[in-house]
């Protein structure tokens, strides 16, 4: 059977971008929020996490062909990898989106991130600057509940303090900070993070569960299910398990309706004055490409041929070493500090900015410790008290640091529709072409050198640099924002150049990716787009 829904604004994707927009518009306008995935019960998800033999980022969340998303241990089951590199960044299809298993790190961009081309001759400039976004960063920090250090931020000027006091540095952070005093890496500081340091908006302070990824057991870390609930309380209608297969438009470009397949087999049509796509940087271009019609044979919003191109991540150099002194890791949020200095400087003409993240979770990311530590010591023949002592001694000294590097937009790095393989609904699976350029490689090399320096100052042995390029799980760039309709998909208000009543939210619109974790900038851009969306729905 086929159900018809009518609303002012239909938002597709109930992650952080869609939820914030829904919350801002609900009440004054009739709002529908659709997500391909189900609602999440935190308790059930937590139980699945406890019972999972391998605790991947996706372990707490249900797996179904009805709402497929990439799972770390079998990523090619969803992505069709066209090479040369494997694209390993994942996302969730759930009400609340990928914020269910994000780390919660919320740095702002730095002003130069918006003018990479004019300042350094690389990539391209954003169509707006830091000053234009600053008030929206402040609103986004209030919405997500960001805890951050007091005083001026040396890189990203602030109009006011963070809404919450800082999350304390870990003991490990402080030991590194002391060891790095007087070095180029001395500015180790508390990371701004959407994690409660005090009770804030009905959520408790962090309890140090050390499981931000894959799930916060108590909701101290922000997730977008919160703004979904707030939007519903104001009258927004949330439809979960509702996969939008395609959008339809008139020949004039006006989007008329969305074709929806429900996981129970039903079909639905959603009619709206305005459509907001917020399904993240793989699914949104996939939907636009799958909506090709006679009037729009390249897909919707794609006269520039930029839909799906310029796919970016933050390629990560991960390094680890054994500290001479115990640092007592495996405690607290997975990261509480970073070294931000390498995010800015004239070197960006030659090599990328990078952001050093100090890991609190020992070697769990690089090696799967402490499980693997136990197995290795057992294989060496240790038993009884000797094993206990060695396990404690070794795990207490495990140190890992990671650097997120900037990856330039490259039109050949792209997601498109696989010509052969389809999902349960007959929609082509995402095919991904992905490569690293010399600029990125130079950034990874610089990060390795920095990590070596840090390890030397801290006093370590057994230094390792991951030979694989790790993913920061930050999918960006596939629906770039710009002023020129010939070169970009959406304008600075995030409205599609070609479609008056179609808006796109999320990191897909980033012209360049910088090295800041993207969620806060996603949130700021989304809040900034609320007024233009409201005007479009009222006009």
């Amino acid at each position: 059977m086929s159900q018809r829904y009518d609303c002012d604004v239909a938002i597709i994707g109930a992650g952080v971008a869609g939820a914030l927009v829904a919350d801002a518009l609900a009440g004054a306008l009739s709002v529908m929020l659709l997500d391909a995935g189900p609602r999440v019960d935190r308790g059930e998800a937590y139980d699945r996490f406890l019972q999972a033999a391998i605790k991947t980022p996706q372990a707490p969340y249900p797996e179904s062909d009805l709402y497929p998303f990439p799972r770390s241990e079998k990523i090619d089951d969803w992505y069709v990898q066209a090479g040369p590199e494997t694209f390993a960044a994942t996302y969730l299809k759930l009400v609340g989106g990928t914020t269910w298993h994000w780390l919660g790190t919320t740095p702002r961009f730095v002003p130069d991130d918006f003018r990479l081309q004019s300042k350094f001759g690389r990539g391209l400039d954003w169509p707006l600057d830091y000053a234009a976004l600053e008030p929206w960063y402040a609103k986004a920090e209030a919405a997500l509940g960001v805890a951050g250090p007091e005083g001026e931020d040396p890189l990203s000027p602030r109009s006011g303090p963070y809404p919450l006091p800082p999350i304390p540095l870990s003991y490990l952070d402080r030991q590194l900070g002391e060891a790095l005093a007087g070095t180029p890496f001395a500015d180790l500081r508390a990371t701004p993070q959407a994690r409660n340091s005090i009770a804030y908006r009905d959520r408790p302070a962090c309890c140090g569960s050390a499981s931000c990824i894959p799930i916060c057991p108590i909701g101290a870390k922000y997730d977008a299910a919160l703004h979904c609930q707030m939007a519903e309380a104001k009258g927004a209608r949330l439809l979960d398990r509702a996969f939008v297969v395609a959008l339809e438009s008139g020949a004039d470009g006006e989007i008329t309706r969305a074709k929806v397949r429900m996981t129970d087999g039903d079909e639905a049509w959603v009619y709206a004055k305005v459509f907001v796509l917020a399904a993240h940087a793989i699914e949104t271009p996939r939907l636009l490409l799958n909506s090709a019609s006679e009037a729009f044979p390249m897909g919707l919003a794609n006269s520039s041929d930029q839909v799906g191109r310029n796919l970016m991540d933050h390629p990560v150099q991960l390094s680890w070493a054994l500290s001479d002194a115990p640092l007592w890791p495996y405690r607290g949020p997975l990261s509480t500090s970073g070294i931000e200095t390498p995010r800015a400087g004239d070197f960006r003409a030659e090599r990328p900015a990078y952001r050093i993240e100090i890991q609190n979770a020992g070697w769990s990311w690089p090696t799967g410790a402490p499980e693997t530590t136990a197995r290795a010591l057992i294989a060496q023949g240790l038993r009884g008290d000797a094993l206990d002592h060695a396990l404690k001694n070794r795990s207490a000294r495990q140190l890992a640091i990671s650097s997120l590097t900037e990856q330039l937009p490259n039109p050949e790095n792209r997601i498109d529709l696989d010509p052969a393989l389809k999902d349960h609904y007959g929609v082509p699976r995402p095919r991904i072409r992905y490569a690293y350029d010399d600029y990125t490689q130079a950034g990874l090399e610089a990060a390795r050198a920095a990590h070596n320096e840090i390890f030397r100052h801290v006093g370590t042995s057994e230094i390792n640099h991951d030979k694989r390029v790790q993913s920061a799980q930050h999918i960006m760039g596939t629906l770039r924002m710009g002023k020129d309709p010939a070169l970009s998909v959406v304008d600075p208000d995030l409205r599609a150049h070609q479609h008056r009543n179609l808006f796109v939210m999320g990191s897909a619109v980033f012209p360049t990716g910088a090295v800041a974790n993207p969620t806060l900038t996603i949130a700021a851009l989304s809040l900034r787009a609320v007024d233009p969306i409201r005007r479009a729905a009222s006009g």
Partner: protein
Amino acid sequence: MLIDSRRRALLVGTASAALLSLIPASAKAATRLDAAGFLQLSQDLADRQDLDPDLAASYLAAFESLGKGEALVRLSTMAPAERDSQHLAEEIVAAWYTGTVSLDSGQKLVAYEDALFWESLDYTKPPGICSSEGFGSWAKEWKP
């Protein structure tokens, strides 16, 4: 390896390989190590006497479900020198410490909070469990 020689002797004395070899193969296949036997085997292999009997039953069931029932019986009858060098012997110890039985035939989580390595890492607790000291506990140096 630090296995108590008296217990080795006891194990060999109670279930000798020589005795078992007299039993026909079909009967041998039906033989099953009981939970108490698995507990004793585990304590000998891990060199600790404080293993939990209920968990022993769960680990035994996990190994059996992954097709290691007969291999456990054989292992329990081996002389310590031979037994301790078996891969399965190492896996039993690793299972108790990590809480997970991990074999070519599959992987099964048996215990999470009760995995023994969290006892060794007594300065912390498993991910997902709130710190007993709550907010900010990670800022302190750990002291026993």
